[in-house]
């Protein structure tokens, strides 16, 4: 063998944290999105540890008070303290979002994988079902489902479940498309040659590479779920007593809060929702960049 490998000068790479920092600097939308999300999380967690949950429900405090030291976000017509209401609302919104988002993403990912990897009749069935369901406006079906459930048993989790019911087609199609291209990649062939079975190929070879896509799908799902929960509140389908952001907002609206000069009442949940959704949108934008190999300039 004539070739002699000489010890190549190894290039010193900056540490992971430094790289992450640089990456975030280059990806401002992800950074801002994550920062907002982090802020909201801190607000919620700190809040949950310090508030008295009872104050988030009617008759707890003096009604119709503008923001003050005592009531940082004011109080509403019903005598809720809007600060704990916001904390609990954020928490519940997070539960719905995460639950529906996670479920939708998991089911979508599993179906997408099954469909694309094994192909054949399974693929035909799954993708046809998705394609048939896609044009049906999900929200309207949510309404129909929510309308059919006995309202007294509606909880935050049932609401999340309703949202999830039609949230899996999007990720299924996205993941399916990705797996389809991914399984044509040569490393999959090599893994087969290395004796890996389908299970191993799916989980060890393909799945890790799809993480950015799955993350993007997840963020998107959470976005949809938060949105859907807001609209379900707006049309009056949901656990009304709970200070869900959508409920607070809509009850402010139905008590004509702006007109009555209680501006602080709707503003809180509006800002919170806007922040949640905007941060999700920004994170989505950022992850998009991550998932897109062309712009993934460095490791």
């Amino acid at each position: 063998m004539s070739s002699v490998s000489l010890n190549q000068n190894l290039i010193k790479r900056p540490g992971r944290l430094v790289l992450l920092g640089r990456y975030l600097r280059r990806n401002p939308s992800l950074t801002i999105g994550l920062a907002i999300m982090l802020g909201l999380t801190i607000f919620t967690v700190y809040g949950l540890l310090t508030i008295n949950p009872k104050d988030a429900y009617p008759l707890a405090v003096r009604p119709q008070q503008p923001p003050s030291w005592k009531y940082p976000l004011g109080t509403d017509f019903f005598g809720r303290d809007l600060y704990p209401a916001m904390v609990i609302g954020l928490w519940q919104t997070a539960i719905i979002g995460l639950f529906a988002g996670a479920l939708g993403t998991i089911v979508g990912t599993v179906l997408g994988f099954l469909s694309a990897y094994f192909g054949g009749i399974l693929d035909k069935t799954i993708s046809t079902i998705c394609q048939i369901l896609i044009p049906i406006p999900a929200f309207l079906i949510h309404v129909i489902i929510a309308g059919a459930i006995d309202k007294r048993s509606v909880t935050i989790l049932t609401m999340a479940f309703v949202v999830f019911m039609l949230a899996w087609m999007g990720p299924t199609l996205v993941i399916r498309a990705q797996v389809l291209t991914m399984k044509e990649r040569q490393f999959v062939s090599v893994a087969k040659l290395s004796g890996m079975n389908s299970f191993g190929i799916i989980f060890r070879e393909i799945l890790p590479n799809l993480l950015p896509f799955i993350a993007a799908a997840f963020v998107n799902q959470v976005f949809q779920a938060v949105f859907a929960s807001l609209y379900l509140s707006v049309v009056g389908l949901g656990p009304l007593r709970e200070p869900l952001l959508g409920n607070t907002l809509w009850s402010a609206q139905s008590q004509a809060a702006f007109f009555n000069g209680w501006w602080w009442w709707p503003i809180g949940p509006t800002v919170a929702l806007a922040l949640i959704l905007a941060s999700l949108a920004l994170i989505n934008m950022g992850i998009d960049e991550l998932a897109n190999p062309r712009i993934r300039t460095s490791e």
Partner: protein
Amino acid sequence: QEVADIPREDTLHLGWSLTSPIGTTNPWLAGYTHQQGEALQWEPLSYFGIFTDKEIPWLADSMEYTKDDFTELVIKLNPMAKWSDGVSVTSRDVVFTFEGQKNIGTLPYNAAFNQFMESVEAVDDLTVKLTFNQPAPRFKFEVLTLKFDTGIPIVPAHVLEAVEEVSEFEGGADMPHSGPYSIVSWDVNQKVYDLREDWWAVEAGRIDTPDVKRVVYFNIGGQVGQGMDIVAQRVVNSELDSALDMRSSVIDNIIANNPKVTTHSGDQPPYGYLDWWPNSLWMNTQLAPYDDARVRRAMSLVINRGLINDFVYEGAEIATIYPFPLYPGLQAFVDSPAVKALEEELQPGLYDPDASAALMEEAGFTMNRDDLWEKDGETVDATILGFEGIHSDIVPILVEMLRNGGFDSDVSFVQDAYQQMGDGVAGLYMFGHGASLKDPYAALELYHSRFSAANGTSAGGNRFSRYINPEYDAILDEMAPLSDDDPRFQELAAEALGIYWSEQIDIPIIQWLHRIPYNQTNWTNWPTTANPAMGTNGAFWAHTGMLVITNLEAAE
């Protein structure tokens, strides 16, 4: 067709929710409502001025019971009354109307006519004799007189006789009618009614020529449509002269923004007048735990009526202890010494959480870790069913009061609330008593066991309590044939009310107010406390809305 130009000064703009299909005017059409301007076209034999407690004869000059036992009624029509196509209103129309009500199942008073009417007969062109099969002292008032949302209008026989299936006949914009306005333009956004020059009532001297030349019903989409705040903004801007009833804080702000806007009580709270629909927390008294009067009473004891007034009504005294509205006749009744004594004794409005707790313990409940009453491992399902559009301010408050009293309560504004109430599923229902206006009979009759459907079947006519008490029934039966000015009637009524209170059949919460903004920029002479006008309520959408509108005067 060409629509005349009518200046804004001569036009009345009303904000209301429009749902009736375009072109449907026939009052016998299934799904007909009188609330969307139709009341401007269809007139009754007589109206009732609730605040003057007076009958207002209209198509009929008089309606008299001609037998002491209230089994015969003679109606005399006004000879000048005419349909808009020039045909006179005669006994033929009245007989046609009555017989139609008796024969056509879909008509709203079909049951009442079947229950009471023996026969109807045209004595001559202007006289009708109505014979009952049992004493019907309240038939004239309840059925033949238009007030609020009840009673029947007279329909043109010469038009409907020719129609095969009246309940499917739309009528159309040109259907001959007796009222003052005709519809000239109609789409989903608005209905435009123009004054008819040849309205019989002016010639007949019933009323002066109306100032309002045109009425526009503007579709605000109702409680499910444009929010109250936006409607309020349009009232402030004088885009609307009047609109649906609103919460007091909103009225407060409307007046603050536009001092020309007034209400039934002027610029002072409660900004409205009493509606006939006092609300209670109803419950199915046949289902545990509501079958226990102690539980019902315990719930009442944790309702703090003063707090309700403070939170929801800015201090106005709206919370009530009665199942009927305190109109003059009824006010007289509750002011009677008998009722006063009962109230003193039974304290129906008492707020006393300790007493409540004692009762609950007595009923076998214990307080669990969540501070909720529990028996056999079950909390009290005290979810309050209500209607979001009208109850979203009060119900959340009640829920918290019950919660604080240890009842596992929650809000539920489901669409099928009414159905659940009718079906008597366990729980609480926030709902009104649309019954009594002059005397307490109708309200008290709601709890007669005749109407107390067995569990599992549906309770009709808002009789959700399913209350069964032979003693109570006996009292009511004795009242039925008596006129309200009979002293025995008053005595029995007090007795029945005593049972209602002591048994806590339901929990009376609030009187119902109509807080309607009246914009005086263009129109004055709205019915108010100071100016009762013809004594009707100010709701332009009620049957008596026509009287409100035709009495308006142009602002200077």
